[in-house]
């Protein structure tokens, strides 16, 4: 159990009014709000020790470097990585995935090789692989689904082969909330010597994630979806693979020696962090990890599963609404997408906004998946540790009013 009333006090924005109503924020899969601890850490850095890292010997630079590296260790602990060398700071998960495609992909994908992704992916885990495959004449394949729309592992086990060089999958769908059978998929990939990538944007913020247990080669996530600031993301990679890879971006900080003719690369993780990093936001991400750990990821996950189940039940009671994806609580986190028989999601979203209720409407950056349901858009409510059941009641009340309005 978590104390949402106490938690809500840490989030200044939750006291805001939207169109004259209390904000009901149900768009957490898009981005989360930030507790004052995270906001204060940004102000602290800029007001008290703003300085560049890994350079000067002066006091502020030493302090900035310390806090920056401390944050890396907070992230390492948060996902139980073996070493802080495995934590690369990026701008966001999209950049992390692009880093893999450009660096690892460029050197390891050849003509005729296969890359497997699922039909549930966010555009950021589709487009980099599409481009890589086009460039290399490689083949992009999609996981087969069963008649319920879930991953068909048996069929996949027959389709994956020695030609498969990479398997990149989301841990949890940002549209359906479905949690994928990661262990089984990664086992199958390993048996075929394929490298594995996990898009953990929707899992790391919401459930306990242990990269050593998952045993993926790469895992990516964004800071802003887990109480951290925008503009900071993480690439986790196994040290031996990262060491073998070429740098992604070249410049300052990522070198150990530069002559007029040639350069040598710095050690991990700096080899992949060219230029002055996003110091303030990296530090704030560490604070976000500490905040989440203090509440407890197991607690947060249970809270969200409960909200997800309640939302599915309540929306299912409405006559003309339909839930997308699997309804079972165990396979779904706090993400619920739904459709109305006749009213378009955009119109639903506009009217709900009038009541201060924020949901996402549209294709959720997963156009192929949403289209596979025969529609161009869906409405989505997504929850986090600060959401309460009575906010779902307000959503239901709002949906009834929307239906009335368009009658």
């Amino acid at each position, binding site marked *: 159990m978590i104390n949402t009333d106490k938690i809500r006090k840490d989030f200044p924005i939750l006291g805001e009014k939207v169109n004259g109503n209390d904000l009901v924020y149900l768009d957490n899969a898009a981005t989360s709000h930030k507790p004052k601890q995270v906001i204060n850490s940004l102000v602290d850095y800029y007001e008290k020790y703003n300085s560049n890292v890994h350079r000067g010997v002066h006091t502020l630079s030493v302090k900035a470097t310390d806090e920056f590296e401390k944050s890396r260790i907070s992230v390492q602990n948060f996902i139980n990585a073996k070493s802080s060398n495995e934590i690369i700071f990026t701008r966001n998960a999209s950049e992390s995935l692009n880093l893999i495609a450009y660096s690892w992909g460029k050197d390891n994908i050849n003509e005729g090789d296969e890359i497997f992704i699922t039909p549930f992916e966010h555009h950021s885990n589709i487009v980099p692989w599409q481009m890589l495959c086009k460039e290399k004449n490689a083949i992009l394949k999609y996981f087969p689904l069963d008649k319920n729309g879930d991953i068909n592992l048996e069929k996949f086990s027959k389709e994956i082969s020695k030609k498969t060089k990479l398997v990149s999958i989301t841990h949890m769908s940002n549209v359906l909330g479905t949690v994928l059978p990661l262990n089984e998929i990664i086992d199958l990939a390993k048996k075929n010597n394929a490298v594995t990538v996990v898009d953990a944007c929707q899992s790391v913020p919401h459930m306990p994630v242990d990269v050593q247990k998952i045993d993926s080669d790469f895992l990516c996530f964004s800071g802003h979806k887990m109480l951290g600031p925008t503009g900071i993301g993480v690439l986790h990679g196994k040290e031996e693979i990262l060491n073998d890879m070429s740098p992604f971006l070249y410049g300052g900080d990522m070198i150990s020696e530069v002559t007029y003719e040639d350069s040598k690369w710095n050690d991990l993780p700096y080899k992949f962090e060219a230029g002055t990093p996003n110091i303030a936001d990296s530090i704030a991400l560490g604070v976000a990890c500490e905040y989440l750990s203090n509440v407890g990821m197991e607690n947060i996950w249970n809270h969200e599963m409960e909200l997800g189940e309640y939302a599915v039940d309540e929306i299912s009671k409405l006559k003309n609404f339909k839930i997308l994806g699997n309804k079972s609580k165990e396979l779904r986190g706090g993400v619920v997408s739904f459709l109305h028989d006749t009213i378009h999601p955009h119109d639903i979203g506009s009217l709900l906004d009038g009541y201060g209720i924020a949901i996402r409407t549209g294709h959720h950056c997963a156009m192929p998946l949403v289209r596979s349901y025969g*529609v161009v858009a869906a409405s989505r409510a997504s929850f986090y540790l600060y959401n309460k059941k009575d906010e779902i009641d307000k959503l239901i009340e709002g949906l009834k009013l929307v239906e009335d309005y368009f009658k």
Partner: protein
Amino acid sequence: MRELSDFDEMYQEVIIDHYKNPRNKSKLPNFTDEVMSHNPFCGDEIELQLNIKDNVIIDVSVSGRGCAISQSSGSLLGETIAGKTVIEAKNDNNSMRALLKDENLSEEQFDSLDDSTVIEGVKKFPVRIKCALLSWSALNDILNKY
């Protein structure tokens, strides 16, 4: 506080009527131009077919999938431009954009847009202006060739 009635300006009766009963929806057996317009922000689609002879739009078909605003605006567009010359339709396109930017239109411009002016209520909801202009952007793509 925003009341439901605030939305009446955006969702006027004419708009809801065109959304529920879109005009000129059937595909044309003969057409000179065809374009599919997407709103990458929400996934809405509009497919516009025109049959243009001697610089006159003699036939229009508008179809698609999307919200009440994008679809009714498309249906209204069809009625506004049917039978007009390319030049007149281009002028309407400019007037429509001006209208949604809250610029003043001459009486002539306003009359020429006909029922399409009901879309004006969207102005209060800037995030929906793109929905209203989806079909007009499709029209723009075609008329630019003339």
